[in-house]
């Protein structure tokens, strides 16, 4: 079963993504801040991380930076899912090694699921 880690500080969004990914037969792990995200990523070994940027404690960008420099998570797929829509943010995310960058409210739930499947299908 494919394992996905949802990193999102908003409880409602966490619930929505969990429900949807569960319905798609994913095993879902959740984290509500950067610290939790890092420990879950190392402990749970997810195949895919859906990462928010603006979160308490450690920001999504920093989490991504740490993930990419940690041997266990270096190759884990990451989709950034943020409210930040500026091209500079998108660029920064891609530079740090995100596999995709989605802007909240401009992508539907189905888009997220489709993107997740697409990224996971890549070698």
């Amino acid at each position, binding site marked *: 079963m494919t394992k996905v880690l949802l990193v999102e500080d908003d409880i409602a969004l966490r619930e929505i993504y969990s429900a949807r990914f569960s319905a798609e037969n994913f095993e879902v792990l959740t984290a509500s801040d950067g610290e939790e995200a890092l420990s879950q990523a190392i402990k749970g070994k997810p195949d895919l991380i859906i990462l928010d940027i603006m979160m308490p404690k450690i920001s999504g960008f920093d989490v991504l930076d740490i993930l990419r420099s940690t041997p266990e998570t270096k190759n884990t797929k990451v989709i950034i899912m943020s*409210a930040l829509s500026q091209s500079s943010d998108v660029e920064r995310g891609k530079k740090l090694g995100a596999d995709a960058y989605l802007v909240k409210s401009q992508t539907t739930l189905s888009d997220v699921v489709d993107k997740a499947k697409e990224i996971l299908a890549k070698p």
Partner: protein
Amino acid sequence: MCIELISLGDLIDRDKLANFSKYFSYIILAINVLIIIGFLGALVFTKNPLVSNDVVRIATGVSVLGIFVFFISFKVNKKEPKSNFLIQSAFVLVYFFIILELTGAVDSIFMPAIYLFLILSAFYSFLISSVVLTIAVSYFIYSDMYLKDQTIQEFMSLNGSSLAAIITVTILSILLGMKYRKNWLDKEKLEKYTKNISADKSKDEAIFSNIGDGIYAVNEKRELILFNPQAEKITGWQAKDTIGLPCKKIMNLKNDQSISICEKDCPVLQVWNTGKNITRDDLCYPGKGKKTIQLEGTYAPIKDMSDKVTGAICVFRDVTKKKEVERMRSEFVSTASHELRTPITAISGYIELVMNHDVCKVDDKASEYLGKAFNTAHAMSELIKNLLVVTKIEDGKLEYTITNFSLKDLTQEVIEVFSKKAKEKNIDLNFNPSANLAIKGKTVARSLDVRADQEQIREVLNNLVENALKFTDNGGVSVSIDYDEDFAKVCVADTGVGIPAEGQKHLFEKFYQVDNSETRAVGGTGLGLYITRSIIESFGGQIWVESTEGKGSRFFFTVPRALG
């Protein structure tokens, strides 16, 4: 020659002359009155044979005339002080000759005073002195030769020396008078000129001192030559401490990246090079011990009569507060938009979950309503996105990455994205990339790439195609591209509801929406076409619409072609 005809009366300041001739008139009036009283008194109290003299009677007559003339000429004194002065002078002359007549004519002891009259009149003007000379000579001839029945020889032997003296004095006086008047004229001109200059100077100074903007000017060595009070207030420097110093010592401006502009980016050098004014709003002044002040300044070259650059002037103002307000406004809009995104995502997410058959079971009616709720949430997120873009456009902060790209490929991608939606609505959506390669009959081998920001143009195409699909229920939407020498022209045509003529005029304005049942049914933010226009115009293109109500619309826009 003209100098000879100019009288002192023309040269003296009109007000001064009017003032003088006013008092002069009063004196002559007093004399006139005294003569009449004196004559009447003499008539009553003395048996002096002089009183019965014709000359005294004439004098009385002249006095009465003088009083009349006083009232007339006094009225015009303000307007014609010169005429009043001359008329009153004529009375003085007449009285002089009456006194001469009463005191023994040519042998009178007052006779030498005639030289005084000649000299004064010669200094006044050439014409007046000629008149006085003629009267004097005529009087001589009349009183000595005519009344005494002398021959010319007798007259000349008796009065020749006096006449010669009179004429010599007159000629000398005329020559001196001419020179005097010329000097006077030069002095007057000079005075007037200096007065004008100082008036201009004080006018400029008044403007420079009282204008609300700071002003400084530099000479060709970039040394400060002007520093107005407002500039003192903004910078904290005193004008007297700055004049003559190199500009960069005082106005050591930096750009918004805190890099000094004085060495490589000096606006003064730029205006000298280009000859054109420059306005910059990215200037920062480090301030004299105070915090940095943000400035907006306009630079202009100063040129001399021969168009040679002799300096530059800068008009600047403190925009720290304005920039702060702008920053706060865009920060507010940006924060508010971001904060709104999360709850909207949650709303759409929950609705999507409910509508997903794998997660929930709802009946058809509930599904229909949820669909509408979902669309509304989507529209709201579009509005937020557009508000952010509009804020950026208005702050001039929309960032562009200009590249050369294929408009055909981009359009193809956009069409593919919308094809699903078109199919759902059962509308034809086709793309006709029939590139018009033959320009003016010649086949052009040039690349068909355009030069702009690809993502922004994608946004434009998205907007136009989405609008076309939104307002079309039957028929189709077709996109085509044409090329001319400089531009690629894209046409998005639909067979939708069309736009009334009045609406077409305002279509590209902010928050404008054609008001009819159709538009209300499909909704929208009224920002899409405003953003579209702003994007197109920022690349030097144009956007316009042709439409017939009920038949459809054709939106056109142009994008500049890549060179080479």
